[in-house]
C-alpha cells in the first residue's frame, strides 16, 4: 500500500482585515482584471504598452507571441535545434509551431534557391516555383535548367517579361463578379490584366486558399498565378479597413503559406495537431520505421500497458497522446478513453440534467456561480462551506478526502431501485466528477491567466519606476511551473474518473482510490491558493504571491509526486493483473 506523508497542513497567508467592504469598490478593482482577461487579441493588448517606446517593435513582438501560451515565461522559442524531445514514457518527438515550419520548410528553401541565381526570377517567382514543386529546391533547379520555358508556363509565370501585377484605384469600374458599378474602387489584376474589384478577389482567395494550392487569376482558363506577396498585401488592405493601422503581413504570416503548411501537415501521419482548443501548434513523431510504427499503434489499440501510451508535448507545452489525439489521458489506456468518450457522447442528455441541477447551495438553496477552478465553495449568503463535487460539508474533507468514491451508503434504499437506475447513477457519479474537473480546468486557467497578467503589469510598472531591486522575474520564476503542475494534475485527476468507472472493484482498486484522494486534495489546495490570491478583496496580489511562495512550490511538487505515484502504481497493477477493467 502506498502512503503519503501527511505533510503541509496549509494555512493561507494574506491579510483579510478588510473582509467586508462595499461592493462598489470591489467592482473598480475587478474591472481592470476583466479587461486583462479578455485581451487575447492584439487590439486590446495595445493598452499595456508604454507610449514612449517605439511602436513598431512592440507591435511585432505582440503579433508573434499572439498564439503563445500566456502561462509561459517569455523566452524566445524561435531558435530551434533539431534534436528530438523525449516524452514522459520514452516517445521521441519534435514540437513545431506553424511559423517555424514555414521558416524551415519553405523560407529556408527559398534562401537556398536564391543562391543558384536563376536568371530573371524574382522572389515571387521562386516562391511559386517552390510551392509548385512541393518545396524541393533541387527539383526546381533541375526543371529550370532542363526546360525553363516549359517550367515557367507550368508554374503560371511569364517568361522574359516583367510581371505587371497591379493594385490600383479605378474610376467608374463595373466588376464582372459582383456586378457592382463603382464610382471609384480598388482593383487587382495580374499581368493578364483581368481586373476584378478587391473585395471579390479577397473573397475568391479566401475561398480557394483552404486547399493550400497556388491560386490563379479569377478568369476561367487564365493560368496566371497570384504571388504570395500579393495575397499578403490583399489581406492587409482588407484588414486595414477595420483599423487605423496598416500592418503588412510578413511571409511567416502569409495566408497561403499557412494554408499550404496545414495541408502538408494533415497529409502526413507522422504529424499531429495539438488538441488543445487555443493551440495551433503540432508535433512530429520521430520514427525511423513507419511500418513498425503502424504495428505499434495497432498493438496499442487494446493494450493495458499504459507505459506505451505515446504522450508527446506540443510547442506550447501541452501534453497529448499521439495515438488517439486526445490530451494526456493517463492513467487511462487509449481504448478505455475511446469507450468513455463514446459513452459520454451517447449519454450527454442525462449528463446535462445534472449540470442544470447542481447550481444551488445545499443549505440555503441560493444559486451559486462557480468562477474559478477550486471546488471548495463558500455560499455567499449563508457562508456554508461545502464541496462542489459531493455537496458535503467541506470540513469533513480535511482529514480524509473521501468524496471520490462511489460509496454504497444508501444501500438499502438502492436495493429497492431497479438495476438500470443503479448503473445510470454509477455512471453519473463518475461522469459528474470527470466533467467538474474539466470545467475546473477552465476555471483554473482563467485564474492563472489573471495572475500572469497581474505579474506582467507589475513588472512593467517596476521597470518604469526603476525599482529593479524589489522584484524581478527570478522572484516569480516558480509560478509558471506551479501553474503547469496544477493544470496537469487536474487533467490526470479528471481521467482517473474514467479509469475508475471501468475499474473492477478489488483491494487494489482501493489503493487507486486512495491515490486519487491524495491527488485530489493537493490539486484543490493549490487551486484554492491561486484563487485566493486573485480574490477581489486582496489588493496586494503580487505581495500575496511572494508571501505564499514556499507553499505554492511545496504544493506544486506534491501534486507532481502524487500524480507520478498514481500513474506508476496504476501502470504496474494493470500489468501484473491486480487491476482489471470491467466492461459491460
Amino acid at each position, binding site marked *: 500500500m502506498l502512503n503519503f506523508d501527511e505533510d503541509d497542513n496549509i494555512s493561507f497567508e494574506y491579510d483579510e482585515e478588510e473582509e467586508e467592504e462595499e461592493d462598489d469598490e470591489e467592482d473598480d478593482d475587478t474591472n481592470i482584471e476583466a479587461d486583462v482577461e479578455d485581451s487575447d487579441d492584439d487590439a486590446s493588448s495595445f493598452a499595456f504598452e508604454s507610449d514612449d517606446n517605439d511602436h513598431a517593435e512592440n507591435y511585432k513582438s505582440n503579433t508573434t507571441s499572439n498564439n503563445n501560451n500566456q502561462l509561459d515565461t517569455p523566452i524566445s522559442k524561435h531558435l530551434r535545434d533539431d534534436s528530438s524531445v523525449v516524452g514522459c514514457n520514452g516517445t521521441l518527438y519534435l514540437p513545431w509551431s506553424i511559423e517555424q515550419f514555414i521558416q524551415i520548410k519553405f523560407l529556408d528553401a527559398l534562401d537556398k534557391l536564391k543562391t543558384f541565381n536563376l536568371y530573371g526570377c524574382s522572389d515571387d517567382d521562386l516562391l511559386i516555383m517552390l510551392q509548385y514543386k512541393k518545396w524541393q529546391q533541387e527539383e526546381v533547379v533541375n526543371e529550370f535548367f532542363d526546360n525553363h520555358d516549359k517550367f515557367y508556363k507550368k508554374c503560371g509565370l511569364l517568361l522574359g517579361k516583367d510581371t505587371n501585377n497591379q493594385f490600383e484605384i479605378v474610376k467608374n469600374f463595373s466588376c*464582372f*463578379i*459582383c*456586378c*457592382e458599378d463603382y464610382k471609384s474602387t480598388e482593383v487587382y489584376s495580374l499581368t493578364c490584366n483581368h481586373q*476584378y474589384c478587391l473585395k*471579390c478577389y479577397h*473573397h*475568391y482567395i*479566401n*475561398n480557394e486558399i483552404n486547399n493550400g494550392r497556388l491560386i490563379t487569376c*479569377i*478568369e*476561367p482558363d487564365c493560368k496566371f498565378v497570384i504571388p504570395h506577396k500579393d495575397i499578403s498585401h490583399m489581406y492587409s488592405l482588407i484588414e486595414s479597413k477595420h483599423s487605423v493601422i496598416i500592418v503588412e503581413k510578413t511571409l511567416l504570416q502569409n495566408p497561403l503559406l499557412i494554408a499550404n503548411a496545414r495541408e502538408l501537415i494533415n497529409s502526413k501521419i507522422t504529424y499531429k495537431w495539438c488538441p488543445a482548443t487555443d493551440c495551433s501548434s503540432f508535433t512530429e513523431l520521430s520514427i525511423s520505421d513507419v511500418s513498425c510504427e503502424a504495428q505499434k499503434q495497432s498493438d496499442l489499440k487494446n493494450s493495458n500497458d499504459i507505459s506505451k501510451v505515446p504522450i508527446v508535448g506540443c510547442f506550447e507545452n501541452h501534453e497529448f497522446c499521439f495515438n488517439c489525439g486526445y490530451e494526456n489521458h493517463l492513467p487511462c489506456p487509449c481504448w478505455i478513453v475511446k469507450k468513455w468518450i463514446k459513452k459520454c457522447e451517447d449519454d450527454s442528455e442525462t449528463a446535462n440534467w445534472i449540470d442544470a441541477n447542481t447550481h444551488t447551495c445545499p443549505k440555503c438553496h441560493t444559486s451559486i456561480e462557480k468562477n474559478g477552478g477550486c471546488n471548495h465553495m463558500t455560499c455567499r449568503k449563508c457562508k456554508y462551506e461545502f464541496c462542489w463535487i459531493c455537496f458535503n460539508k467541506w470540513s469533513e474533507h480535511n482529514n480524509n478526502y473521501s468524496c471520490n468514491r462511489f460509496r454504497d451508503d444508501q444501500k438499502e434504499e438502492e436495493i429497492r431501485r431497479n438495476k438500470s437506475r443503479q448503473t445510470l447513477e454509477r455512471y453519473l457519479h463518475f461522469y459528474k466528477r470527470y466533467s467538474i474537473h474539466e470545467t475546473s480546468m477552465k476555471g483554473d486557467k482563467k485564474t492563472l491567466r489573471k495572475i500572469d497578467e497581474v505579474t506582467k503589469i507589475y513588472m512593467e510598472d517596476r521597470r518604469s519606476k526603476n525599482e529593479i531591486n524589489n522584484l524581478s522575474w527570478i522572484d516569480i520564476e516558480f509560478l509558471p511551473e506551479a501553474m503547469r503542475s496544477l493544470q496537469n494534475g487536474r487533467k490526470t485527476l479528471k481521467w482517473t474518473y474514467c479509469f475508475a468507472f471501468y475499474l473492477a472493484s478489488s483491494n487494489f482498486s482501493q489503493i487507486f482510490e486512495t491515490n486519487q484522494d491524495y491527488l485530489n486534495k493537493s490539486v484543490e489546495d493549490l487551486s484554492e491558493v491561486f484563487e485566493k490570491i486573485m480574490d477581489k478583496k486582496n489588493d496586494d496580489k503580487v505581495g500575496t504571491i511572494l508571501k505564499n511562495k514556499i507553499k505554492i512550490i511545496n504544493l506544486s511538487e506534491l501534486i507532481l509526486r502524487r500524480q507520478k505515484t498514481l500513474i506508476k502504481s496504476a501502470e504496474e497493477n494493470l500489468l501484473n493483473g491486480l487491476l482489471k477493467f470491467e466492461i459491460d
Partner: protein
Amino acid sequence: MAALPKRIIKETERLVSDPVPGITAIPSEENLRYFEVTIDGPNSSPYANGVFHLELYLPDDYPMCAPKVRFLTKIYHPNIDKLGRICLDVLKDNWSPALQIRTILLSIQALLGAPNPDDPLANDVAEDWKKDEKKAIEVAKEWTEKYASKKEYSEN
C-alpha cells in the same frame, strides 16, 4: 432572408430577357436562389427531342462557389448518376466566379451531346457505354422517350 446580391439579380434578369436557345431557367417565387431549369436534348445526340428537367440552387457563397445542379428527369448517361448528380469539371475544381448560370447550363447541354465514359460518375452506365456503345445509345434513346418526352412530363 438576406438581400439578394446584385450579381444574382443581374444574371436572373438576363436569363429571362435574353434566354439561351434550348434552355429555360425560372427562379422560384419563394426562393430566388432556386431555379427550375429545362434543357432540350441536343439534336445529334441520343437525347434529341427530350426535355430534361433540372434544379439549380445558388449557395450563399455564390459566385465564389459553384451552383448546385441536379437532373430531376431520369437520364441514361455515363456522367450522370441515379440521383441526377452531374460529373462536370466546371461544377467542381474548375469553377470560377467569372462563370455564370448561363455558362454552366450550356456546359451541361454540351455534356449531353458528348458523353465521356472515361470520366464516369455512373460506373455501370460507363461500363455499358465502353463495352457496347451502340447498345448504350439505344438505351439512352429509350429512356429519353420514356422519361423525357414533352408529353410525358406535362401529364405528371
